[in-house]
């Protein structure tokens, strides 16, 4: 029997991740509740006056997105690694790069979906509005930012899943690495709230980050899963 091609393996792995999460819903629920809690904390931490929110809303939105999405990133490998499923996956005739892209895709879909829901909740709870240009800018920013965010996150998740207390280490490693995209994402979300289109410089910066780390992941991911199983 010939092993399936990369595209077929990729689709199977993404579908498999999707089906599992839709059955359990634990990761999505944890991410959603964490996002909601962060929004509520901000409502206490920052005075709700309109003038203050004009300066801080983009930052509030992205900090909420970041905290919620990190839960999904952390679970991308931890649960499978701990249950031995990752070791089983690695025995399958699937290229490591295919496994990497599949994991990035499924995590990306969950994170973007969740952030769109949280974005709407933010608009309602903080009494903000977006025009059509602003909405397109925000959605494009979320997609371009999350691709880089999830790519780096999946790589770091694959580094830390086997470490005791690795969930804390993941955040310590991930947040400084994400600073370039976070900075651009906040600036871009600010433009979105002002009803402006995404600037070319911002888009190029996000694309450069995404492509750099997708390329690095393609080359380096296999090194992260080579000895998996020896330290479990």
């Amino acid at each position: 029997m010939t092993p399936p091609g990369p595209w077929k393996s990729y689709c199977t792995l993404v579908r498999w991740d999707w089906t599992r999460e839709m059955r359990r819903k634990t990761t999505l629920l944890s991410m959603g509740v964490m996002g909601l809690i962060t929004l509520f904390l901000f409502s206490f931490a920052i005075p709700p006056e309109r003038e203050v929110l004009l300066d801080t809303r983009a930052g509030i939105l992205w900090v909420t997105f970041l905290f919620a999405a990190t839960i999904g990133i952390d679970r991308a490998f931890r649960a499978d690694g701990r249950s031995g499923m990752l070791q089983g996956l690695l025995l399958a005739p699937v290229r490591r790069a295919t496994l990497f892209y599949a994991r990035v895709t499924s995590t990306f879909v969950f994170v973007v979906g969740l952030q769109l829901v949280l974005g709407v909740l933010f608009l309602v709870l903080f009494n903000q509005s977006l025009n059509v240009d602003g909405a397109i800018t925000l959605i494009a920013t979320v997609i371009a930012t999350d691709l880089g965010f999830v790519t780096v996150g999946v790589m770091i998740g694959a580094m830390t899943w086997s470490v005791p207390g690795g969930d804390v280490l993941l955040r310590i490693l991930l947040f400084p690495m994400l600073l370039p995209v976070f900075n651009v994402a906040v600036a871009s979300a600010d433009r979105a709230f002002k009803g402006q289109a995404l600037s070319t410089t911002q888009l190029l910066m996000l694309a450069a980050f995404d492509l750099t780390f997708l390329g690095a992941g393609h080359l380096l991911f296999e090194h992260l899963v080579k000895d998996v199983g020896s330290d479990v």
Partner: protein
Amino acid sequence: MSTINSADRTTGVDRTSGALPRLGGSPARGFGVHAVLALAALLFLNWLVVTEVPLAIKGIGSSYLIFFYHFPAAINVFVFYGALMGASVLYLKTKDPIWDRRARAAAEVGILCNAVLLVTGSTWAKAAWNAWWVWNDPRLMSAAVMTLIYIGYLMLHGAIEEPARRRQVAGVYGSLAFLNIPMVHYSIKLFGQASHPMKFDALSDASVVATRWYGVAAFFVFYLLIYRWTFDRKSRADRLEDSLGRIRRIEERGATS
């Protein structure tokens, strides 16, 4: 003194005394000469700063003199973080543990340069702008974020117990981290409001330029000395860890047979 060279090849234990290889011991060859050279180079830099460059320049006064210690740290940060990336890639390619030790030593010296950069930069900021820290300055922020990224490297290295996986994972992180540095810098530069003094006419005087580049070379000799010392310590610690691992395996085999 018992060293690994005179020890049992299987366990690393000295046959005559039964002791494990020591963490301390004699320094690497030529270390003393290197130390004297580094000290002389730094003393000469101080002499140049006192005699060859203006003691105060218009606009920022004498506080600019810290620049001759700040600028070498800035250049050497990139030298050692670049070396870390090179060693990480070479480890992933060759699987030779020596590259992992080189990467770790380069990370520690890089973080030291980074700390010097931040302290001198912050001190200069207080003198020039009356603030210890400026959040939207791209260079100051890039330096701070680089420190956090490379402290993460050391934390990751220390967190994984199994040596082969630890080296492998650290090799990947060391390669990724360096790719991020230009992006951290440009993202803050493009979307922050720069207040770092980019150009002073007096800093382009021939004597100042020559002194600052001499400072880079002198500090490189000094940081290289620390790198050699750190690398030597790591090599001894790794040999000790290897020996302990072998002893444990032999004991386990003895217990089961």
